[in-house]
Structure formats: C-alpha cells, structure tokens
C-alpha cells in the first residue's frame, strides 16, 4: 500500500491554492471508491465535498464547469464527472481508476440485490414494500424535473421544448433517439448564437 494515501497533510492546503494536483492512481481510485460507497441519495454533493473541500484536487469554479460539461453530454453525471476529474488528475489511467471506483460498490450491491430479488421478489412483504418504493421513486424523479427546470432553463420558451419532447416520446412514440435529434436540433437552433450578444453591455 502506498504511504501517500495515508498522508493527511494534503488536506491542510488552502482550497484555492494553485494546483500541482498530483494524485496517484491509488489515491484517485480510493477516493472515488469511498464516494461510490457512501453517496446515498445523489452523487453530486458528495463529489463536491470530497474533491473540492476534502482533497482540494479541483477548485469550486472547475467543479461547476465540469458539472455543466457532464450535464450536456450523454452519460450519467456521476460517471462523466469521474472521467473528467480523473483525466485532469492523471490522464487516461486516472479516468479509469475514478470510474471503476465510483461504480464498483453500487454494482456489487445491485448484483446481490438482483439475485435476492429474483429468489424472494414475490414474497408478500416485499411486493408491498416495493410498491411503495416505486411510488416514492416517481416523486423523486418529479422533484428532479422541478429543480433542473429552476436551474438550467434559459427562458419561458424552453417549456415548449420540454412539452414537445414529452409528447414525442409518450404520445407519438417516436422513440428517444429520433426525439433527441428532432427536438434537440430545434432547441439548439432556437438558442443559436446571435451577433449582438457579444458586447450588448457597452453599445
């Protein structure tokens, strides 16, 4: 085991110091493994607490920027963040260490849960509990829809694109890929770069 992983002195660095940001592959793997094992109820706050506050591997500004990149790419925020942060710290190997670390605990857990559910899933207690769990998950997703709408929309007209997307998938059954291309293209063109955007503050 590397003794660098046990050395806590890194934490005493101020979070805004210029980063020599040297983290070993083992340190990256271990940190993301811990995040993967403890991040109940959503990964993002845990990522920030660990990478920005505890380790100081990236600063707050970098974190926000990486998160916005993660959100506009396909893929889950959690795994995209792992790739981006891992790449910054240690290149390709850093990315691999980070994504394997963050996925491993949940994957092992769901592997076991899957086997258990297959054997005991039709037990009355479990069926009853799962009905409640599924209903709660629907509420959870709806709350994500609301908070994402508050944070990332850039105008009232964006609600039209949300509605179009839902109608295309749930009513017209166009499928996710065709909807993504059609409505996505429309929305990107709607938000196309405009000339006067450049220096609108000082005419």
């Amino acid at each position, binding site marked *: 085991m590397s003794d660098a992983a046990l050395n806590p002195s890194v934490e005493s660095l101020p979070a805004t110091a210029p980063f020599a940001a040297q983290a070993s592959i083992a340190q990256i793997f271990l940190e993301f493994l811990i995040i993967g094992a403890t991040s109940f109820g959503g990964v993002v706050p845990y990522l920030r607490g660990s990478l920005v506050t505890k380790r100081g591997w990236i600063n707050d500004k970098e974190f926000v920027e990486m998160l916005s990149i993660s959100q506009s790419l396909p*893929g889950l925020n959690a795994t995209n963040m792992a790739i981006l942060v891992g790449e910054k710290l240690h290149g390709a190997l850093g990315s691999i260490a980070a994504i394997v670390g963050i996925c491993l605990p949940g994957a092992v857990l769901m592997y076991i849960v899957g086997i258990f559910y297959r054997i005991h899933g039709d037990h009355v207690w479990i069926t*009853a509990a799962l009905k409640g769990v599924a209903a*709660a998950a*629907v509420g959870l997703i709806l709350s994500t829809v609301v908070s994402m709408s508050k944070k990332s*929309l850039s105008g009232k007209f964006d609600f039209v694109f949300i509605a179009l997307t839902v109608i295309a998938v749930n009513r017209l059954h166009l499928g996710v890929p065709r909807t993504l291309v059609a409505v996505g293209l429309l929305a990107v063109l709607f938000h196309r770069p405009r000339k006067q955007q450049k220096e609108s503050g000082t005419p």
Partner: protein
Amino acid sequence: MNQIPALIRVFAYLSILTVGGGMAAFPELKTLTVEVHKWLTFPQLIHLYSVGQMAPGPNMMMIVAIGQWAGGFLGALVVLLAFFGPTALLAFIVARGWKKLEKWPWRTSIQQGLAPVSIGLLLAGCFTMAKGAISGVETAAIAVGVLLILLQYKINPALLVLGGAVLGVISFMPK
C-alpha cells in the same frame, strides 16, 4: 441461449441515449429489455430501478441485475462495460478538447438547447414509469408526498424512498 451479444448491443445503444441522466433512456430501456428481449417484466424493471435509488453511487446500477439475470456474472460485467464505456469514452475525448471550444459560440447554444430536451426526456421517462408504478390513491399519494417534501425540505432522497417501503408495507400487506 447466449444473451451476451444482445446485452452488449442493447446497453451500448441505451448508453448514448442518457442525455441529462439515466432516466432519459427509460422508455427505450423498457421497450428493449421487457418487450423485445423479455429479460424481465415491466413490474420487475420498475422494482429494480426504484430499489436502485437507495443504492449509493451512479443511479443506474440496477442494470447490473438485468445483466445478471440474462447472462450470469459475465452478463453483469458486459452490461456495465457496454452501458458506461461509450459515454465514458466520449467524456474523455471532450475533456481533452473542451478548452479549445471555449470560444466557439455554438457551445452555449448546444448547452442551452439540450437543457429543456433533457428535462423533457426525464419527464417522459418518469411518465413511462408512473404508468406501472402509480396504480391507485395510495401510490399517487406517496409520489406526491415525496415530491412536496423534497421541494420544501433539504432531506436525503434515499431516506424518503426507504420511507416509501414502510408505507408500502402498511398500505398493501394483505390483512
């Protein structure tokens, strides 16, 4: 029958659809795993997804269970690689090139344009799931309750999903 090639195809395809989150691919996930390949039933899919919300880490780890059912340990492994590999590669390429795109005006357009579409996909996924998960007054009340609590208070969502399990047992246990 050997399901490994089909698992790789399906989950690599689903991978690139997860714009804005795993739920965006849910309608397609349902079609392919339940209707086309019959690896599991719709209620089972909903149950696995929901239980997955209580697990730590990235929130689509329930796909491991689907892989395990259809193809054992190897199935679980290829599902993980197929589902996370393509987007990981893309993110890696973008990580290298994004700085160069900083001045490109369309970068902001793409971000602003994809935001409402990804929210729409999330909502569409949610409706698909709700069709199977909301079946009466009790389940509707649990969903609305969780929504309102999360909008009002800062509370760990995993705890509320666990609370849903307790309410489920209270409401649906045969007397």
